[in-house]
């Protein structure tokens, strides 16, 4: 299945989480309030470090979000 991450088309497997996709691409999920890059930490929905934007909504926890065909993911948006 295909999704878009920051405008780029990416081939992903059904069942993957958006957090895993983003990590595999070597991207940080978000910028912290002082500008540090941050990525997923807990993998279970409690740390909120994996927050990013999906289909224009956010910031949402990507580790709790399975990939969906055609979804538009935007990382690094403060």
């Amino acid at each position, binding site marked *: 299945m295909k999704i878009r991450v920051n405008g780029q088309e990416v081939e992903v497997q059904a069942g993957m989480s958006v957090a895993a996709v983003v990590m595999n691409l070597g991207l940080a999920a978000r910028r912290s*309030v002082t500008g540090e890059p941050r990525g997923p930490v807990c993998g279970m929905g409690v740390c909120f470090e994996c*927050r990013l934007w999906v289909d*224009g*909504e*956010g*910031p*949402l926890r990507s580790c709790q979000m399975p990939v969906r065909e055609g979804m538009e993911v935007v990382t690094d948006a*403060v």
Partner: protein
Amino acid sequence: MVGGGIVGAACARQLEREGFHCVIVERDVMGSGATAAGMGHVVVMDDSEAQFALTRRSRDLWDAMELPDEVEFERCGTLWVAADEEELEAVRGKLAYYRERGVEAELLDARRLYEAERGLRAGMAGGFLVPGDSVIYAPCAAAWLGRGIERKKAEVLTLGDGWVELRGGERLEGDIVLCATGAWAAKLTPGLEVKPRKGHLAITDRYPGAIRHQLIELGYLKSAHGDSTESVAFNVQPRRTGQLLIGSSRQYGVEDGGVERHILERMLRRAVEYLPGLAAMQLIRVWAGFRAATPDKLPIIGLARNCSRTWLATGHEGLGITTCLGTAELLADLVMGRGTALRAADYAPGRFA
């Protein structure tokens, strides 16, 4: 100084400047009462001449302060939103009133309203912009106002003339005792015309630039100044963090400080009616606090009944963050026996008798 909210802190600071040595007696963390619960909108309001005078004077005092960064002072202005022509028409009188008294204000037609705030729902008639209003972060403001002043963590059980008794039996005396315990004032001063009026707020994650002004529906005036047991109004504030702070609700007769879904729901629905983009924003926390409401919506500032050394500064309802500085100035003038810039009688404790 009993009570370490923003009012107690501002008064203590002012009296220290007059040469008093103050001790703030606070049962909890400084600024943890209504001060921690409030919105921090520094706003001029015109329910009465006295309210206008006090809020306006206080806003000038805030403007004159050199505040540290953590107080998050932002002069974002207030944009009162008129939903229909009737509201816009009614606001013309308000414009004249503000201008006559030297407070800058502007009427916006629909086009200019949407230039100012793109996120508002289509179909609004216009707005009333007060560019000089601001937003601060009240808990840090209270901590800053109270900086360097001696503190004592204790609960006052009894308030006398020039003395207080603490839980545990200790008694403190002062040339001046000030009761600034906000919504809890009637506990220490039985018969005082102060009732708790509950309010809910909700805060979102960070959405920098989503709105630029404190946005309030003109109907808010009815909610704030009316006496219905329960009301909500659209009132959304941009925080420096990029968060949106969503208000507001007013309830009488509720003692429990917990969050109540039914009123929160009404409040949020109202907010989404005006600002549809809110629907997609993440709410991260909701809470409730108590305003200290008086029958005429004005604070109580002056000597307590039958006292010569015990003073009151309470009853600031939904405006204590704004009016704490004007309150402190008035109180200090009264204590020092000087003439006052504001008409002291308007805020005098005895006025309800």
